[in-house]
């Protein structure tokens, strides 16, 4: 499936910016790349692996007499330099690098090294670690802007001329796709082409930078850096909610938050004084990593992995450094040590987190602590109002409480009639016998509960027989308690502490009669495990039952079973209760108690009191002799069960609190960074392994880079300030280099992912530095830098190219022509939606579910809550792609075909490939078929009345250009043939135009629409449409 290049392409690589024969060899440009790649591995910064004590990355070391008595580098004397001898020797034993490294030095490289030593073997510091200084802008005729001056100076050296400016239609399409990721409308194009003022282009750029779609488009790449997704990753890969962070990124770009603040807020917004909600949300950057919840994992192993991920992602994103190499050992190429790595680790090590997802939330999804409830201004107002109401209700309760003793005294005499006074109270059901059907022991406890012990049968049944209560019974209460003797000190008998109650059977046996089964009409519980709701006990079809997350939750639980028909009092009748555990093996209840109530079904309450028997005893004690504890119990019972003004106040408070909680539960949450009160200790980890701590380290930035700014606190905030300090040589260079890559396809230094020693030496080092300096000078103004780049003549050149130019500079590194490359997958899809008039421009909010292939999440997983993918109805199908729900282990398939990463780890650079699978997607995926139909409709509705007019409109919409006669002829012929074909095959036409959820426009003949749909699809698949040129 690889499209293999013909061999002649190798010829096309040419010398672009060389040290000509007369020019001095430059260490950084010419020599460092050779030494770094071929020598530093054994003779570089890593002192643990250094061979023969020889170090070549530091001049003083390289010039010393070595262990063997020879000297590696003798300035001015290549013939006496051991380095030259060892790379040129014919001895297979002595040759460097050793053959097993597969890194032979080429003849040309040898010559360069010889020349460099002959010229004095001068070293330079690695260019990217040198301070950023704005170089002098060269004076070049015709270059109005510094960017152009630098580029043209280089072109002149090569004897090349820049290309003319692209035509206006091409320009508006290029800059619109680049800045907002959507195509211009035909109206935009026509207006721009018609505007002949010199400021027309600048006005266009300003308009695009000010549009809300700009932030969306810029955010897209940042999501790759931040490994943003809607799932937790790893085996179960259940859902999480980080979209408030994603929306923050969009806002930050749209508000043009300066990059230094953009950085500080994401690294340490929580540590800013009086941090605003938005600043805390921003710290989600470092919570976007995956979290593992696989059964049996060792939590600390995965907490360490998460922190390492933060260090790596932060260093890739801001510093363009591969510090990940230092996880296990000192860096092989760059002057960073393993200690540097773990000193950075220490900054991220102090969040109160387990590192894993525990228990049920692994399967059911959700955010892991620490997280933040996020409110809009409107929601904040409502939240405040609800909070105020709850406060007022609390106050009212305090006032009413003063009357409590009086109220209780008045009530006590009526206590004898229990049915009247405490309708919702439960009375303990005293059994005649309690046994396990399969041989467990059930032992009565002081509180009247029964504790299971002995053997734990696979599917036990608890047999509980009692006399019919004096008042009859309408409902039963099952209380389950944790016990230290139970597995996991929890509530169930399974080794993990869980239970599953499959049935709660009630029989009545009248004297001399047979047991008669009663119907349980309703069951409710104060807590149910997801997937094991209490309703399953009543619903026989469920095949499951009631479970309570025993492995993780150890609180007492209660469940209530209400009979369809209340049982009347009947002397001599027996109640036979059966608690069955037949859903899952060995999941038996550990400790339980049963109570009854006789009130009407509507009045029994799950949280009703269970202590009536005890209360009656207390009431029988003369008031003066009651202990304070007894008084308290009496009062508590009264408040909970007897109507009074206080109870009304209590109920009002409960309602207000519940309204508050209910509303709070609707608020989205997002994971954030939050420092624990005491920092954790951090250590160098031997070989990077979590269980091999070595020397203790403290928070510190890498030793070879400039120190933290004066006054910066020693925490994440200080680290953030260090990243954006003007002395930091990397942050600005990394950013402008990637900005350049965004517009030109390659960075000025091509290895935008790595500016370390192994990086490419930039083709235009002065321009890179000038841009970096300008970025900082502008106050880290991202929009200003975007504008500065796109306003340049270099950016505005035509991308047309001759075979000679392709041969000369296949990758267009010199920029003698405008940039041309395929759009990203997201832009390809967004553009299709826009061309088809389907795009829903709503910004932000929870992620949406557009069309995906049937079974996209289910073919390889039956775990977690992200299963059974179902596309949204309506708007969710037509939102921009950055809102598409992203499950990391089964990422959106079309995006995967278009080079999107899985978002499991930080990705700062995507590949850009062409495969037939992409073509199949663009031709056949329902989104694109529906979009083609949308475009067809617009051609018919807006294009005019003749096929020619309609084709012209469609072509303009798709390409921003006028249709040439030759192409018109091709398209017209095909359209006419298909018009005829579909007229003869109306049923096929109906099938084709019925793709997708939106309905075809009324009033257009279906065969006609189908034919236009095919031609619209041709237009949308044109190379010039999926490419920005």
């Amino acid at each position, binding site marked *: 499936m690889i499209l293999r290049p013909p061999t002649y392409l190798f010829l096309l690589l*040419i010398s672009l910016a060389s040290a000509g024969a007369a020019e001095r060899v430059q260490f950084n440009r010419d020599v460092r790349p050779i030494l770094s790649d071929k020598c530093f591995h054994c003779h570089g910064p890593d002192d643990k692996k250094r061979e023969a004590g020889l170090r070549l990355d530091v001049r003083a070391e390289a010039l010393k007499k070595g262990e063997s008595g020879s000297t590696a580098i003798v300035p001015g004397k290549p013939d006496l330099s051991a380095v030259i001898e060892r790379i040129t020797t014919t001895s297979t034993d002595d040759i460097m690098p050793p053959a097993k490294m597969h890194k032979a030095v080429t003849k040309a490289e040898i010559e360069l090294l010889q020349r460099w030593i002959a010229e004095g073997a001068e070293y330079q510091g690695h260019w990217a670690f040198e301070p950023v200084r704005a170089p002098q802008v060269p004076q070049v005729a015709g270059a109005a802007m510094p960017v152009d001056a630098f580029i043209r100076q280089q072109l002149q050296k090569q004897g090349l001329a820049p290309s003319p400016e692209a035509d206006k239609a091409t320009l508006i399409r290029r800059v619109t796709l680049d800045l907002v990721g959507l195509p211009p409308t035909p109206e935009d194009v026509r207006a721009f082409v018609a505007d002949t003022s010199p400021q027309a282009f600048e006005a266009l750029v300003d308009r695009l930078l000010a549009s809300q779609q700009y932030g969306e488009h810029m955010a897209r790449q940042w999501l790759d850096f931040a490994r943003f997704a809607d799932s937790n990753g790893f085996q179960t890969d259940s859902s999480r909610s980080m979209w408030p962070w994603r929306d923050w990124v969009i806002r930050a770009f749209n508000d043009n938050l300066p990059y230094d603040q953009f950085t500080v807020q994401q690294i340490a917004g929580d540590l800013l004084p009086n941090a605003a909600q938005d600043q805390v949300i921003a710290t989600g950057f470092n919570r976007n990593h995956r979290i593992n919840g696989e059964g049996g994992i060792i939590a600390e192993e995965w907490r360490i992995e998460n922190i390492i991920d933060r260090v790596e992602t932060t260093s890739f994103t801001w510093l363009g450094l591969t510090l990940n190499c230092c996880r296990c050992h000192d860096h092989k190429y760059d002057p960073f040590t393993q200690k540097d790595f773990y000193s950075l680790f220490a900054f991220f090590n102090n969040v109160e987190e387990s590192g894993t997802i525990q228990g049920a939330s692994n399967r059911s999804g959700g955010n892991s602590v620490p997280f933040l409830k996020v409110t809009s201004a409107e929601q904040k107002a409502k939240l405040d109002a609800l909070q105020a109401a709850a406060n007022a209700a609390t106050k009212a309760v305090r006032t009413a409480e003063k009357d409590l003793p009086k109220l209780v005294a008045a009530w006590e005499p009526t206590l004898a009639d229990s049915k009247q006074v405490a309708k919702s109270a439960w009375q303990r059901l005293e059994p005649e016998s309690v046994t396990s059907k399969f041989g467990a022991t059930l032992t009565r406890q002081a509180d009247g509960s029964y504790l299971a012990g002995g053997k734990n049968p696979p599917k036990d049944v608890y047999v509980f027989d009692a006399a019919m209560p004096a008042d009859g019974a309408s409902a039963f209460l099952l209380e389950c308690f944790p016990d230290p003797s139970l597995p996991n000190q929890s509530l169930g008998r399974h080794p993990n502490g869980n239970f599953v109650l499959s049935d709660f059977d009630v029989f009545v046996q009248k004297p001399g009669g047979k047991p008669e089964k009663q119907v349980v009409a309703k069951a409710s519980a104060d807590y149910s495990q997801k997937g094991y709701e209490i309703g399953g006990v009543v619903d026989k079809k469920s095949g499951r039952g009631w479970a309570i997350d025993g492995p993780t939750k150890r609180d007492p639980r209660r469940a209530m079973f209400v009979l369809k028909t209340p049982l009347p009092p009947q002397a001599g009748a027996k109640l036979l209760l059966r608690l069955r555990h037949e859903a899952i093996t060995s999941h038996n209840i550990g400790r339980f108690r049963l109570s009854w109530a006789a009130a009407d079904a509507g009045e029994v309450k799950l949280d009703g009191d269970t202590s009536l028997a005890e209360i009656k005893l207390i009431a029988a004690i003369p008031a003066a002799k009651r202990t304070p504890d007894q008084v308290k119990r009496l009062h508590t019972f009264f408040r909970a069960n007897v109507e009074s003004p206080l109870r009304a106040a209590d109920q009002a408070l409960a309602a207000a609190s519940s309204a508050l909680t209910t509303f709070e539960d609707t608020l989205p949450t997002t994971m954030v960074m939050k420092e624990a009160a005491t920092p954790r200790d951090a250590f160098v980890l031997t070989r990077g392994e979590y269980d091999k701590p070595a020397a203790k380290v403290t928070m510190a930035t890498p030793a070879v880079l400039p120190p933290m700014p004066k006054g910066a606190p020693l925490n994440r905030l200080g680290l953030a300030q260090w990243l954006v300090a003007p002395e930091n040589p990397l942050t600005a260079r990394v950013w402008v280099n990637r900005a350049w890559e965004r517009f030109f396809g390659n960075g000025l230094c091509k290895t935008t992912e790595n500016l370390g020693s192994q990086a490419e030496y930039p083709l235009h080092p002065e321009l890179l530095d000038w841009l970096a300096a300008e970025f900082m000078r502008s106050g880290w103004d991202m929009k200003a830098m975007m504008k500065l780049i796109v306003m340049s003549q270099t950016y505005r050149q035509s991308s047309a*190219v001759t075979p000679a130019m392709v041969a000369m500079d*296949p990758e267009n590194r010199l920029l003698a022509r405008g940039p041309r490359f395929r759009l990203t997958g997201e832009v390809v899809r967004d553009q299709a939606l826009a061309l088809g008039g389907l795009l829903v421009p709503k910004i932000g909010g929870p992620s949406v579910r557009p069309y995906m292939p049937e*079974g996209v999440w289910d073919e390889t997983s039956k775990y977690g809550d992200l299963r059974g993918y179902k596309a949204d109805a309506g708007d969710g199908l037509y939102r921009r792609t950055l809102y598409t729900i992203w499950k990391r*282990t089964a990422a959106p398939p079309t995006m995967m075909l278009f*080079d999107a990463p899985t978002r499991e780890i930080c990705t700062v650079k995507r590949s850009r490939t062409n495969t037939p699978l992409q073509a199949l997607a663009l031709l056949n995926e329902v989104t694109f078929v529906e979009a083609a139909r949308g475009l067809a409709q617009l051609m018919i509705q807006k294009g005019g009345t003749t096929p020619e007019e309609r084709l012209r409109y469609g072509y303009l919409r798709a390409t921003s250009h006028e249709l040439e006669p030759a192409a018109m002829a091709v*398209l017209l012929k095909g359209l006419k043939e298909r018009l005829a074909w579909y007229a003869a095959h109306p049923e096929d036409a109906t099938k084709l135009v019925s793709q997708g959820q939106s309905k075809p426009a009324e009033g257009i003949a279906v065969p006609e629409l189908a034919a236009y749909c095919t031609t619209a699809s041709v237009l949308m698949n044109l190379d010039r449409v999926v490419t920005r040129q």
Partner: protein
Amino acid sequence: MNATSLRLQDHLNRRIFMGRSTAALSSIAMASLMEGRAQAAPVFPNFAPKAKRVIYLFQSGAPSQMDLFDPKPQMEKYRGQDLPASIRQGQRLTTMTSGQKSFPVAPSMFKFNRHGKSGTVLSELMPYIGTVADELCVVRSMFTEAINHDPAITFCQTGSQLAGRPSIGSWLGYGLGSMNQDLPAYVVLTSFGTGRKEDQPLYDRLWSSGFLPTQHQGVKFRNAGDPVLYLSNPEGLNRGLRRQMLDELSALNEADHAQGGDPETLTRIAQYEMAFRMQTSVPDLVDTSKESQAVLDMYGPDVHKPGTYAANCLLARRLAERDVRCIQLFHMGWDHHGGLPNAIRGQCSDTDQATAGLIKDLKQRGLLDDTLIVWGGEFGRTIYSQGTLTETNYGRDHHPRCFSLFLAGAGVNKGTTYGETDDYCYNIVRDGVHVHDLNATIMHLMGVDHERLTYRFQGRDYRLTDIHGTVVKGLLA
């Protein structure tokens, strides 16, 4: 990076040309260009390959080695006794069993038999595989580093426990290229098992190209609908119309190329033509209606149910016939923490006959001579029972320190059993084979020196075997 430059980058990265990209070139000028030409002949394969293609039958979830390949009859006398500390040696356990009060030895309840001329010993659970025993090289001394599924499978596939590295199929496709014009170089087929119907998930990452160009990612064939995503034209649009549309597309693209001159535009045309060819080559591939009854019978009754392991084995043979470089099946459901005897019976009934059928079918077509087969999972299982041990039931936890798998086909030392574990099947006593060693050996059989197939990423030359791995001579014919 456009496609042209990307391909150039591929080749540069493959060391065909020279060590570094254009910057280094820049200072070297024409002389080195000539040198580059001299080196431009492909370096892969590095030597004559034994296998042109590999079919890797991944048994996901970790099959129990002492119930399938590595009999320990002597364990019967220790039944129920605690695993001796001298055997465990304080090695870590998962938190699923680290809290157990005891680690009762659970001898396998399955019988083992000798098969074929070689006398290869296999469990009674694999009667069909027994009939091809003389084709197998059973390895009893595999070991790995990870103790949980996700990192362990990722490790087998990419040489790293963490996400982000290319998978073995991507490496092979990248290094060796495709052998055909209308199918992917790396195809993945998945199936759920009947032993544990819900277990365990797989992840896109397992066949991802990592940092290699995306075109090298495995193409997962789907078990329902189009086998390849978006393969079918939309309803109401037939192949004749599609051809007509593509002709218009080509005509317009060619005109644009005449004006704009970007070679990428020609690539685009080729891309659409290849897609058009796939629209017939893939349906032809998955259409098994012309397979003879005798052949279908070899794979067992499940072969008629799309998406089963057996049906995928048949597809694997058809993919091999069409010279797909790397074919990988993932069969889920081998994670038997509890109720192992029943679950493993289910898994074996899924896989036993079909695996044997595949080997025989390849052999009768002469394809076994240049096809490598690998059958195995991500780690082993513990000799001690997880949960209660009874006469007829036990479970086993994860065990990275030894496990078994087998190879068959091209270049394999067939009819042999390699390596040895201790009495408790807990530690390796002879000829340990690390996952990196296995991967190095697979690459070796494919004609690739695993130390030389590297890719420059973030300044470092990465390879499948990281900085480890030794070709295991004992596994080679």
